[in-house]
């Protein structure tokens, strides 16, 4: 009746998961209770859960990502402290628990922390930067988000019902096969990642189509802002490689559930093929994360230097170069598996060559700053931190790209330090920079600058104090994923690393404090003009927050940096462009299909994990029924009346008139 599920699945005998689960359940129940007591459900359902508005979906993605980053960070704290505590002793986390923690840490950080945040940024910004009203497939966008949330939910459920995988964030066979991982842990991983992977693939399709087929008049490819270009390249990679993830995880699922032999170590299975296929996905995946991050920095460097981005065309070329070459380097993750010198050389050379693309970008950012009037606001601090951190991380990467060197440091702490160096320095710094930069646009008030600067410094210093020792440890011979440490000489650097974690914790607290204080003081920090940072691309032409239809009239773009041109012309002529002719706007209606589909996907995943076959069938049928009901709807769009469009836009123009007089008085613009 309940498959494999019974009371032994609840971790009554393990204090840490038990206490964590109780706290999490209480917090969740508390939040749900608060929402119910305040009567917020109708509002939440109408405005957020069933929304197809790309801006709201983007905000929800970012919220999901931030919460999961904190969970992943908690795992990281446990790992660092365990290793420091376990020098010559057992530490406080038994091996079977520790293995789940490092697996969950990686899985959550990549799939449910970084990916949702990056996709959240893409969602919020790309239609605004393109000057259009929404993405190509708004309802599918909602489906994507809710499927991602479904995967995140399943991973978190594994904390208090059952267990998680113990195989690391990529479940290598034969360990991940049914013979050696008979529990539900790997199954939780497989279904959570598979379900959210479908969501991500749909997002990729959505954005490729949006960028290629939906741009405002006059916006040719070479007039698109850099963030949109990188979002496009990232979406191309998503479309190209997420099917590989789907296929490979499906093969492992078939091996586990019905005894097939894709990756088993008997009867003709080939475990090495898993590594090959999964890294054919895995390497492009990190470029999916880092390309939009580069795009965020491009926007920030040009805005806060007061200059157009240096070498726009070479940036575009470098982005597309990285996009293509990223799919030609994956073997560098398993140089040591034995493919031999010819194969290793090809992929080693390709891995070194791909650094050229990033080098071009870094030079362009630095040249953007040169000769500009640089303003060191919080986003710019994160960007400077990124330049320093990412260059070093990239250099260690080129070192790892040399097969003989990699043979010495593969799967050591040197590797761990490298990839955290580039992911934290590249992606996480970008996300914080972007959050500081675009938060005012999304919510209408800016974040408290002082706390933001403090948070940056603690994060930057904390990062280096945590991870620099890991480079040294790797060179001293320490391998990764150790539950206990038998070489006393490694102890000193592990303690330094834990000190770094403490600094990072302060940084995280300051970041949360910044959010809380800013919300409390939001009237003082209000952004009335919509163009807080003297921006250059079209999202800064809208009010903060933008109306749900984005633009009353689609802008007509006449050059690169479309909004900058509009702004300069307005300042020169001392007047806004004439009021446009308003027309009614058709917008897509909200739809519960995303939430509904994801709900049954979660039920399906849970049922499959615990072998509750009848429930799995029920969930599938219900999901199909819901989809068919949705496909039968007659009304997809509603019309915004002219008066409403005019009212909203006239308010925007009034604010801009005030802004214009301020600008000309201050003579801020050159």
């Amino acid at each position, binding site marked *: 009746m309940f498959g494999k599920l019974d009371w032994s699945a609840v971790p009554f005998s393990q204090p840490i998961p038990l206490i964590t689960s109780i706290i999490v359940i209480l917090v969740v129940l508390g939040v749900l209770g608060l929402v119910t007591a305040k009567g917020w459900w109708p509002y939440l359902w109408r405005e957020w859960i069933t929304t197809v508005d790309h801006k709201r979906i983007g905000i929800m993605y970012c919220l999901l990502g931030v919460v999961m980053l904190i969970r992943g960070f908690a795992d990281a704290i446990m790992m660092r402290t365990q290793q420091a505590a376990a020098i010559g002793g057992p530490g406080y986390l038994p091996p079977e628990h520790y293995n789940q923690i490092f697996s969950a840490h990686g899985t959550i950080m990549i799939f449910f922390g970084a990916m949702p945040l990056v996709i959240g940024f893409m969602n919020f910004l790309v239609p605004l930067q393109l000057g259009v009203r929404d993405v190509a497939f708004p309802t599918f966008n909602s489906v994507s988000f809710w499927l991602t949330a479904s995967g995140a939910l399943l991973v978190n459920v594994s904390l208090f019902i059952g267990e998680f995988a113990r195989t690391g964030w990529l479940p290598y066979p034969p360990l991940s096969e049914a013979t050696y991982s008979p529990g539900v842990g790997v199954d939780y991983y497989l279904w959570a990642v598979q379900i959210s992977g479908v969501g991500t693939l749909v997002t990729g399709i959505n954005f490729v189509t949006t960028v290629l*087929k939906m741009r405002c008049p006059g916006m040719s490819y070479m007039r698109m802002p850099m963030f949109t270009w990188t979002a496009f390249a990232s979406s191309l990679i998503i479309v190209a490689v997420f099917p590989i993830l789907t296929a490979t995880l499906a093969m492992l699922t078939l091996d586990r559930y019905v005894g097939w032999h894709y990756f088993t170590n008997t009867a003709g299975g080939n475990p090495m093929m898993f590594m090959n296929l999964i890294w054919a996905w895995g390497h492009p995946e990190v470029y999916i994360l880092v390309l939009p991050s580069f795009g965020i920095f491009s926007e920030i460097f040009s805005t806060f230097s007061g200059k157009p981005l240096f070498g726009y065309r070479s940036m575009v070329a470098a982005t597309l170069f990285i996009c293509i070459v990223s799919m030609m380097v994956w073997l560098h993750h398993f140089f040591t598996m034995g493919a031999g010198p010819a194969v290793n050389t090809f992929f080693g050379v390709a891995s070194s060559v791909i650094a050229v693309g990033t080098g071009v970008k870094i030079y362009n950012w630095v040249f953007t700053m040169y000769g500009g009037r640089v303003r060191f606001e919080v986003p710019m601090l994160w960007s400077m931190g990124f330049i320093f951190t990412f260059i070093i991380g990239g250099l260690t990467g080129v070192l790892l790209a040399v097969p003989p060197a990699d043979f010495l440091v593969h799967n050591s702490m040197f590797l761990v330090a490298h990839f955290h160096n580039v992911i934290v320095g590249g992606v996480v710094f970008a996300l914080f920079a972007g959050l500081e930069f675009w938060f005012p646009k999304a919510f209408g008030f800016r974040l408290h600058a002082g706390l933001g600067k403090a948070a940056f410094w603690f994060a930057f210093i904390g990062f280096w104090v945590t991870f620099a020792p890991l480079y040294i440890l790797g060179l001293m011979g320490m391998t990764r994923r150790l539950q206990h440490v038998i070489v006393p000489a490694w102890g000193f650097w592990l303690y330094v690393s834990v000190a770094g974690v403490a600094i990072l914790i302060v940084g995280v607290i300051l970041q949360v404090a910044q959010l809380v204080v800013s919300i409390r003081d939001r009237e003082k920090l209000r952004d009335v003009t919509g163009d807080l940072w003297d921006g250059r691309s079209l999202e800064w032409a809208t009010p903060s927050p933008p109306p749900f239809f984005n633009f009353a009239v689609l802008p007509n773009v006449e050059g690169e940096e479309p909004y900058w041109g509009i702004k300069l012309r307005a300042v020169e002529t001392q007047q806004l462009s004439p009021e446009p002719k308003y027309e009614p706007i058709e917008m897509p209606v909200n739809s519960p299909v995303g939430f509904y589909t994801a709900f049954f996907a979660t039920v399906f995943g849970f049922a499959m994990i615990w072998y509750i076959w009848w429930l799995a069938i029920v969930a599938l049928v219900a999901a199909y029924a819901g989809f068919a009901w949705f496909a039968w709807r007659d009304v997809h769009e509603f019309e915004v009346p002219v008066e409403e469009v005019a009212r909203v836009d006239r308010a925007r123009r009034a604010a801009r008139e005030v802004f214009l007089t301020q600008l000309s008085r201050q003579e801020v613009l050159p």
Partner: protein
Amino acid sequence: MSDMGLPASVGAIRRVREDPHRLGYRAHGSGEDVEGTGHGTTGPAHKRIIVGYGFWIFLLSDIVMFSCFFAAFAVQRGATAGGPSIGEIVDIRRVGFETAALLLSSYTCMLSFAATNKRNLLWTQIFLFVTGLLGLIFVLLELQEFIELAGKGITPQRSGMLTSFFGLVGLHGLHVTLGGVWLATMMAQVQIKGFRREIVHRLICFNLFWHALDIVWIGIFTIVYLMGSGA
């Protein structure tokens, strides 16, 4: 603008000369109401183009997924673990019938879309029905093949080669089956709602899907069956 009847390239040259920045009919700020061409500079493209193109991108991603299963088959084709080899399980006659059925179903799918363009409900439905029937024949033949093999103890659990064989062929068969379910739904929708805009968009998507399945089948019958039979 009458570039009807000219080769596409001449038309393109003329367009570039007349409108070098490809701004379409809309000059700067004139605000005329023109649909986007999808080349990007006259505003967002029409929904029909957006839907069709998005589905094309999805199909390419689906083909990437198939290529992983092809790669697995290529790697494991010799991993018979003492069991039967690919040459011993291939039945060329049945594959011939399956290929004929699927190819003809692609053809009838084309005919049904011609009828859709003419807004002829009867012939659209007839050809959709024949397409579905031929697809069903394909699936039944494949099921027959699998059941016969299983009866002889030749199952995917036997060896790596058999796993990748059943996986690849089975994945394709699953796509055809789901396509059949979609086809039935489309026939019902066309019958009840007529040739409404979004129904036509979905028929475009279905057409793309069905042809893509036949393209994948070309790969399968060549690489798995024909090449396998020689092994």
